[in-house]
């Protein structure tokens, strides 16, 4: 469903992503992790067709993004870390606008149940300024689901959410995967990835350190012991932050 082959992105002399290849099949949730500056955001932007890669190809649902970006993007939903909404469109008007962008003719019939499912049925006429942070996040989800995406990308989806919002977001991701979507989840929250993801891809300095199912990646970095994803991450990236002693305060 998501097929990335030899993806490379250079900015002049600097290589942000180097020769990255991986696949995400329907029903799979792939966690994308790496330290700051590892190339996660650049990878996501290339996959979503927001920026062109220097080399390599990305296929979404069998359609090459560079060759036919419009058709490829029709299958995609991208959820950024912050809910960025139009200040002067109501909840319902957001859905109307997105439906028009994606050409969803039966949007009104779909929008009602989606809003009801997200407990937002009574918020249709509100502007974003009148919504809480969690409600804004829900609206972003509703907008992303209105066109039945087959490829879904989450970038730090739990930022700023309360416990209720976190649980809801996890449920949404699991349900979408069950329904057959291919999902990429980029996050620094390794516990979230451990709970939700079926696969993981660890990036560092633009290169792939490890990828595969959670079990495969664990086995690769363990010497028989039962490692958490956090342990695996630090071993894969060669980072020693977890073993550094805490600073001594005066």
């Amino acid at each position, binding site marked *: 469903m998501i097929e990335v082959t030899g993806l490379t992105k250079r900015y002049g002399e600097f290589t942000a992503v180097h020769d990255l290849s991986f696949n995400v099949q329907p029903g799979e949730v792939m966690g994308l992790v790496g330290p700051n500056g590892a190339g996660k955001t650049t990878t996501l*932007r290339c996959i*979503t*067709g*927001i*920026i*062109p890669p220097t080399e390599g190809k990305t296929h979404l649902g069998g359609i090459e993004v560079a060759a036919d*970006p*419009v*058709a*490829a*993007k*029709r299958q*995609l*939903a*991208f959820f*950024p870390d*912050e809910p*960025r*909404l*139009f*200040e*002067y*469109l*109501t909840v319902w*008007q957001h859905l*109307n*606008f*997105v439906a*028009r*962008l*994606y*050409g969803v003719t039966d949007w009104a019939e779909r929008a009602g149940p989606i809003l009801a499912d997200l407990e937002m049925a009574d918020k249709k006429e509100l*502007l974003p*300024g009148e919504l809480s942070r969690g409600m804004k996040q829900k609206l*972003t989800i509703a*907008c992303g689901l209105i066109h039945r995406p087959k490829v879904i990308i989450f970038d730090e989806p739990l930022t700023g959410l309360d416990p209720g919002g976190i649980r809801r977001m996890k449920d949404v991701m699991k349900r979408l995967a069950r329904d057959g979507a291919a999902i990429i989840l980029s996050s620094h929250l390794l516990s979230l990835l451990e709970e939700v993801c079926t696969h993981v891809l660890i990036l560092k300095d633009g290169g792939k350190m490890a990828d595969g199912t959670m079990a495969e990646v664990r086995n690769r970095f363990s010497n028989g012991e039962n490692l958490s994803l956090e342990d695996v991450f630090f071993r894969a990236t060669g980072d020693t932050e977890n073993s550094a002693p805490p600073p001594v305060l005066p």
Partner: protein
Amino acid sequence: MTSAFLYLQFTSLKNRLLERIKRLKQPKYLFGAIVGAAYFYFFFFRKVIRGGLSEVAHHHATATTADLPSGLGPYLTSFGALILFVVVAFAWIIPSGRASLQFTEAEVAFLFPAPITRKRLINFKLLRSQFAILVSAFFIILVVRRMSFLGGNPLMHAVGWWVILSTLSLHFTAASFTREQLLSLGLHPNRRRILAVSFLAVVICGSIWWLRSHVAPPSNADLAGPETIVRYFGNVLQSPPIGWILAPFALVIRPYFAADLAAFLTALIPAFAVMAAHYWWVTRADVSFEEASIDRARKQAERITAVRSGNWQATRDRPKQSRPAPFPLAARGWVAVAFLWKNLIALGPFFRVRTWLLFATAIVGFHVWAQTTSLDHKIYAAISVVTLGAGAWLLVVGPMFMRHNVRLMISHFDLLKGYPLRGWQVLSGSLISPIVILAAIEWLILLLGAPGIGMTGRGAALATGIVGFGSLGIALILPPLTGLMLSIPFAATLYFPAWIDNSASRGGGIEVMGQRLIFFAAYIVVLLIALLPAALCGALAAFIVHWLAGIISAVIVSTVVGSIILGAEFAALVWWLGERFEQFDLSSELPR
């Protein structure tokens, strides 16, 4: 897809207007709207509404180049073309940023991953910018309505402005795309600048060389008045090769200067052709603008958030290196000095005593030069009048500019309340930096303007001693007066928080403009009341001392008395506001 963009624009506009109307239920917006509407009516629309369309129609029917001195229109077009040429040249020399288009963060989030072609994204951006350009053209016409001597009518002028602004906007976009393409071909911005400047230098030198050999220098008759000057230099600009270079720019300018409908329509066709060529240029450029646009949208959103929260300083670029302290800060002492120390570090190395001393030395040097070289008295007097006028204007308006300190105080309210300080200490700390900066500027202005006051018509009667001691007295009065004026916005915020423009206020509009007018009027009234005791006591002291010891002593004593009273008023006000600050509960005062 265009319908989706139009839906977004018109629905957003409709909702924005509805929200504005809804908030008129709050008295502060309602009164603001009434005052703002009255301002617009009396200053812009009254004549149009009273004169009605008949005036416009009459003007349209009779407007010819006869409104202008005969045949001056084409020359003005050449001057306009020259200005446009300079503006366009800067677009190729100055910018160094990546090619980007202005999108909001919401547009980036929804449109960039959406199934939309790049060309449609560009079209959306161009379509959206048209709204802003149309509004700008409308307001420019309102403001420069008195330029009807140019001929034409307001509608033609508005379309003329729209053509100029739209073409410029398209050119800036196209230039940024081309710069990006040149960069991808290995042409570094500095090399591109060198090339652009070299091209410009060749054009200027070639033109000067040609002019020297083909055009006679201006005679006294050519420089006799504005009209002859315009004719002479207009002729120069129209003569080849300068005329050829400016020709495409003149095509864009010409509709604005068209004197009648026929000339306007004739000029519009080539102007549209230039616009269409630019549109083709923009849409054909295969440039990756998305990444830089995302960064730009993020920065813009950060700026808007910072401005709404009152933190204007956050809109500046973040400092890349630490700044030296203006002076060593002792661990004990007057707390306000610590606030001043912190703010001077933030303002950077320009705001230091040595900078002010350098300025003062330069001003003194100027006066010495003016006296020794017998500078024309009229010029000296003019400098004095203009400088002191600017000083008076700054004295009234300066504290208004510093209102962001109030917003900053509100946004840092919790932090400030958490300090182990009395209210008056926090207030004096918040006020000390703007007082020091404004007073220092005022002192420099006084130093520049006061010595020449004796050269002016009315000032000639004043003796040098009176001017000198009077200036010193005014210098003495300025700090407490500035402090008093700066305290008024603080007082307004602490006593009428819901009425003051703060982070809770969203957007602009006629009602917000009206609120500012109301605040300004209240500010002037309170200021006059505050000045009254100092003025009365100063006048009384001047009267008595003048009778006892002469005019110079009267000037000295009256200004000292005035400054003491203003200082006392300021100290009392800070103490009083400090008490209010300590009891102030922001959460219960501001509207939710």
